[in-house]
């Protein structure tokens, strides 16, 4: 399926020029400073969270259930009140200048929350008006066409499939032409095909200058989409990293060489290689970086040195740690 957002107002040359000016200022689109949220009853959902999200980037927020992802989004969007700390959207404080701040934000919630008896057209038009924008049937039509909802525009929401309802939520969030789009678990419970379609939609929006923040459980989704990744655990933002930097970590692989005879220690002749001996002495584990293409992985040299020392290898295998493993180990480390 091809989804084109080229006709949306955010893609106009004027919008692009405005974005260019804003980019020139170098100020982040969203600034969160020392945010705390303690709910009634004493549960602390956010602990001193500080975060900057740049214009036009896709930022993925990862974390297990109950980590604070939705609370963070809710505070930024004005749905939950912060206990302390500040949030600025394009320089506007989201409490003192809530009108300006909120006008820039589109939110797609995690739950399928729709008024069942209204039509697709009415509910999307309602969203636009609610944000104070004058009627613009052309824009609504473009959004509905882009999300392949046009044929369903006169259907009541209760008649739609789950995937369609999720698209309606995206259409509602885009109805007022936001500059920032929050997607809270956008592909939860969505089949693989629709998930890929949504990724395509998100990419096209980013290409038009919309800043996108998504929360997800799917590491694959973050890997596929994000420019930067943040990990939140028990209310603390424990990691914010460029995806490319994380991929470099991902690039580290392990080669395990199963030996004919056990060794007591790594032979001195092999000391130049990053080797570790297994506990039983029957395997040598070599760690290397696959991204260092120009320098080589060092495997050929290692194998040559092994042969020279007379160590016989009966089997070997390699494994690569995934982003998921990094995430899981982070969770465990801090448990």
């Amino acid at each position: 399926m091809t989804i084109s957002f080229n006709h949306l107002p955010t893609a106009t040359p004027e919008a692009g020029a405005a974005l260019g000016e804003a980019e020139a200022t170098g100020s982040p689109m969203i600034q969160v400073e020392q945010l705390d949220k303690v709910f009634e009853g004493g549960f602390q959902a956010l602990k001193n969270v500080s975060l900057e999200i740049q214009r036009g980037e896709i930022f993925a927020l990862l974390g297990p259930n109950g980590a604070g992802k939705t609370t963070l989004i809710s505070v930024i969007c004005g749905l939950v009140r912060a206990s302390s700390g500040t949030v600025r959207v394009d320089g506007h404080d989201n409490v003192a200048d809530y009108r300006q701040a909120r006008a820039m934000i589109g939110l797609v919630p995690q739950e399928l929350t729709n008024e069942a008896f209204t039509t697709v057209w009415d509910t999307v038009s309602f969203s636009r008006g609610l944000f104070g924008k004058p009627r613009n049937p052309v824009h609504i039509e473009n959004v509905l066409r882009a999300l392949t909802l046009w044929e369903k525009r006169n259907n009541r929401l209760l008649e739609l499939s789950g995937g369609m309802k999720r698209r309606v939520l995206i259409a509602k969030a885009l109805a007022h032409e936001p500059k920032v789009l929050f997607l809270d678990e956008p592909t939860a419970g969505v089949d693989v095909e629709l998930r890929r379609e949504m990724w395509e939609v998100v990419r096209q929006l980013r290409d038009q200058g919309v800043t996108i923040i998504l929360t997800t459980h799917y590491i694959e989704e973050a890997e596929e989409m994000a420019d930067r990744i943040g990990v939140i655990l028990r209310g603390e933002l424990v990691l914010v990293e460029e995806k490319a930097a994380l991929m470099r970590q991902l690039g580290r692989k392990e080669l395990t060489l199963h030996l004919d005879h056990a060794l007591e220690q790594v032979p001195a002749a092999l000391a130049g290689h990053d080797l570790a001996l297994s506990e039983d002495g029957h395997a040598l584990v070599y760690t290397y970086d696959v991204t260092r293409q120009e320098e080589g992985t060092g495997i050929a040299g290692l194998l040559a040195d092994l042969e020279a020392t007379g160590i016989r290898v009966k089997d070997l295998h390699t494994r690569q740690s995934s982003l998921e493993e990094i995430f899981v180990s982070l969770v465990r480390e801090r448990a």
Partner: protein
Amino acid sequence: MNLQSVKTIYLAEMSRSLRTVLQSIVSPVVSTSLYFVVFGAAIGSRISEVDGVSYGAFIVPGLIMLMLLTQSVSTASFGIFFPRFSGSIYEILSAPISYLEIVLGFVGAAATKSLILGLIVLGTARLFVPFTIQYPLVMLLFLVLTALTFSLLGFIIGIWADGFEKLQLVPLLVVTPLTFLGGTFYSIDMLPPFWQTVTLLNPMVYLVSGFRWSFYGSGDVSIWASAFMIVAFLGVSLAVVNWIFKTGYRLKP
């Protein structure tokens, strides 16, 4: 003031009433008309005059008030409760609109609907019972103020309720009984002295009496007491709504 947003909420609420025209408009008109038929034309023809007017004419203001109060409360409470129930309230709370604008949209629509219903029932009553309105402007003022005040009360109930049962609790167990006992079908002069005094504790007496005064120039209590009561009701409702938004009660944790 973000008028576009207010208009959007207002029109969405009004169109919800139109979508459910049978339940929202036809049903209350029919049930109130039945009261006129039974109490006004059938039983009323055997009852002598009350406060100088025929019994059928006497109950017209009370019945309109009964319908106005219950409809204002139920329409406004459902209007804000349903988005809370379905979860779509997130959109309203994250929109660039003030609390006042949210209230204007929801309460304005509920009050408008009740007002229209009140006028329809008034016209319908005229088909069954002959009556005149001595002070039409006062009557309209009472109609507007009551619709507004009880729509605010409905809004409060819609935020307070955490289930459909509670949503119905106040209209069915508080508003309707108090209105019935507030002089809708009788003048409080007809009660024994003790119960006359007790009845004066019922705030609905003042609303029904004031509204009846605008029709026939006489009521159970003075028109000024009625006017004070409706303004006091309005003030308390506004104060509670203001508190709800200040504290985020059941809306913003």
